[in-house]
């Protein structure tokens, strides 16, 4: 008889994801006395994903990182992986981390789970922003990366711009259909609509 045990390896996630899910690294334990130099939080419980990141900085490098997340296995594993990845990195490198870099290191995620992996780097950037803010310093990297418009579905301004520019999206409905924007808490809709109108104007699309 055929051995059906394959289903164990056929888990939707890779072994690396599973490992980070079960044994998350750099978790922010409540009993630990960790005072971050920078702190960031993104997402919302309503959207099913929320993430908090704290960092300490030494010589413009990330010395320690701690995180907490409310989310699915993908979200937990990718934050854990992200925390390993950026430890010791210069703030500049760390600021440019992308979800793809994290998922690659995880050995990939199922396509429909990709959107669950995209909060880690945003939370990290928020923490770095906060670090500069606390220091009263100008953030040298700000503006060099895409900004999230819809936190729940992780839709960025660059993504929206691309869709409008190429004529793929004209209305908020189309944008929602293409990206899922606005289908979580809905708080981003007004902002997205405004952006959409501006972009259509810029690219002369009616």
């Amino acid at each position, binding site marked *: 008889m055929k051995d059906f045990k394959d289903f164990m390896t056929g888990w939707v996630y890779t072994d690396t994801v599973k490992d980070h899910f079960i044994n998350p690294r750099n978790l922010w334990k409540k009993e630990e006395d960790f005072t971050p130099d920078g702190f960031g939080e993104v997402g919302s*419980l309503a959207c099913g994903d929320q993430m908090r990141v704290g960092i300490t900085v030494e010589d413009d490098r990330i010395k320690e990182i701690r995180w907490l997340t409310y989310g699915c296995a993908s*979200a937990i594993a990718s934050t854990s992986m992200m925390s390993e990845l950026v430890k010791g990195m210069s703030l500049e490198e760390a600021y440019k981390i992308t979800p793809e870099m994290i998922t690659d290191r995880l050995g990939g995620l199922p396509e429909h789970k990709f959107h669950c992996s995209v909060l880690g780097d945003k939370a990290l950037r928020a923490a770095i922003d906060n670090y500069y803010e606390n220091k009263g310093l100008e953030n040298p990297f700000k503006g060099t990366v895409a900004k999230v418009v819809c936190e729940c579905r992780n839709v960025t301004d660059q993504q929206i711009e691309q869709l409008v520019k190429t004529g793929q999206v004209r209305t908020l409905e189309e944008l929602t259909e293409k990206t899922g924007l606005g289908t979580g808490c809905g708080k981003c809709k007004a902002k997205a609509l405004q952006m959409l109108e501006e972009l259509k104007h810029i690219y002369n699309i009616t």
Partner: protein
Amino acid sequence: MQSVYMDNNATTAMAPEVKAALKEADRIFGNASSMHRYGREAAALVSHAREDLAALVGCRPSEVLFTSGATESNNTVFDIARHLITQGKGSRIVTTTIEHPAIIETARYLQSEGIHVDFCPVDSEGRVKIDELEKLVGDDVALVSVMMGNNESGAVQDTSSAVRIAHAHNALFHTDVTQAVGKLPIDFEKEGFDYMSLSGHKFHGPKGVGALIARKGAPLMPFLHGGHQENGLRPGTYNTQAIYGMGIAAKLAKKDLETEAARLWSLREMLRKGIEESIDDVVINGSQEHCLPGTLNVSFPRAEGESILLMLDMAGVAVSTGSACATGSLEPSYVLMATGMDVELAHGSIRFSLGRYNTQEDVRYVLRVLPPIIKKLREMSTR
């Protein structure tokens, strides 16, 4: 590692009695429509099943139409309504917001074809608001469809009132009893239903087989076109073995319906109390008074459903969740959301559904492995 299957609302294991009967009948391969002995043998299997199924749900054998399952049965009924509406017999369908996708999506499809469908809302316990239904149903309605037991919350609907409302306006009444079969007593004739849908695999029968029960005299048009099987109403060579297997499962379900329902409810209550005692801050979802005996839907604030499901899976326990993350969709369960539930609670919902082969030992095992999982996830949580 122990392994505990608590996802019986998704599907059930075939009963050993069913397997044994199928084994016994496995030399029978004839086409049940053939006149020779091979055919007659196969036809006998189908006819046994028709009687056993009819006895379980309180209809006449001649009112049973074998289908590929509840999805097809539901589609057939809505297609009948569409026919009636195009013939000018009524102009509207009324169903509810918590039906299975086999109805919700069919209704949406009909809407896209220009047919007017209204969805009756539910209360915070997941039960269809009968007063709203009363307001929604008028003389222009061709079909009213209200499910009996909800697959996610377990909420049992007041189909007796619903059928009365439908009939008061001369509308036909359909109920999807897929989750209720074998768990609640069903009396098709006494209740006066016009149509009923069910699937074999939800009550320990085979998959890919089910039935549409249609009252004698209720309008019936074939959904598929072809041969003369089931009086031409459901053509296609009989899936003899599966039909026979479903019949055996029906017989089994009827034999100990009451004791089994009571047993499932006591296991469910043992699980509920155990969870409430060992884990703080949990929310039991759906009606407690009107609930399918084996279904327990619980939300664990500050822990996300897919994470809980996967950790339980690693501990050998199979359940399901209403979290968006688990389905790949972006929305959490529409059934739970329809009750007005907070989104976070829906994301953290777990459905335990018990069946014939679950034991107290299974419940004890779940109660052992679940609390540390919730604790671990809550320690990771932002809140």
